[in-house]
């Protein structure tokens, strides 16, 4: 099998992992490139959801039901990654809230959210 055919076959069985890669890339790009501090926080959130998608995909099994255990139900998807991601979502919101509070404070002190402008103002 050629390398290209192998890649195509991987795409049909591992598509979510490729979506994870793209989301991590887009999040990182926004985090690094956007001059606006608020958009950097959005980029961080996209990066986070990429990782969530990785975990929830690992928990999935074909034909699985949600892990609500009843007699004769099943097979079930794994509950543990779901729990970890629930915790991570809430922690992510707390992180965003603190970051946004810092941004509001930075704006009230310096009057701008532009990264380069802030640097100039800081060193003046």
């Amino acid at each position, binding site marked *: 099998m050629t390398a290209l055919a*192998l890649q195509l076959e991987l795409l049909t*069985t*591992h*598509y979510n992992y490729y979506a994870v*890669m*793209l989301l991590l*890339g*887009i999040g990182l*790009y*926004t985090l*690094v*490139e956007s001059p*606006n501090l*608020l958009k950097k*926080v*959005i*980029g961080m*959130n*996209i990066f986070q959801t990429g990782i*969530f998608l990785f975990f*929830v*995909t690992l*928990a*999935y*099994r*074909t*034909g699985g*039901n*949600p*892990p*609500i*255990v*009843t007699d004769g139900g*099943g097979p*079930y*998807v794994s*509950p*543990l*990654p*779901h*729990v970890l*991601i*629930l*915790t991570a*979502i*809430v*922690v992510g*919101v*707390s*992180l965003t*809230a*603190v970051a*946004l*509070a810092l*941004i*509001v*404070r930075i*704006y*009230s002190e310096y009057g*701008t959210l532009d990264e380069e402008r802030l640097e100039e103002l800081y060193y003046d």
Partner: protein
Amino acid sequence: MSLSLIEGSLLVFVIVCAIGTALLKNTLAAVIAFAAYSLGISIIWLVLQAPDVGLTEAAVGAGIMTILFLIALANTVNRDTDRLFESIRWRTVAFVAAFVLVIGATVPSLPAIGDPTAPVVGGEVTQYYLSNAYKETQVKNAVTAVLAAYRGFDTLGEAVVVFSAGVVALSVLRREVFT
């Protein structure tokens, strides 16, 4: 499992929304695109049989997070922009592409999606929770059982994080109450 039509279109939708969020110059537009992104991803959780995560993401990710961004935006500035999209900086794209390729190199060693013998799904821990959760905690939803009983200290730590975030936000804003 092979890619179903609904999941394929959802994945395309979230990736388009994410690219839109990254490139829209106007901050309010980016926040709205991010809300659409969160909603799309919460439906993906439902498709992946994770209703608890889907509900939390819809309420917290698409709901509370958007409100937080809008409050922050109302307290700062949203400049009128001359152009709809930001220009793409290729140097950063090259850096991100290198990162993505390194991550992508690990994909072939991961188990196929939905493989019942994969370590996470077929592993001992998952099987223990699924067969003992109801007997030991009297909760039918295994996610709740693990969250509140088996990993209760983890959830306590989460509550501590939320509390500290509230305290930090108040002290950073130099206020005594949220109004």
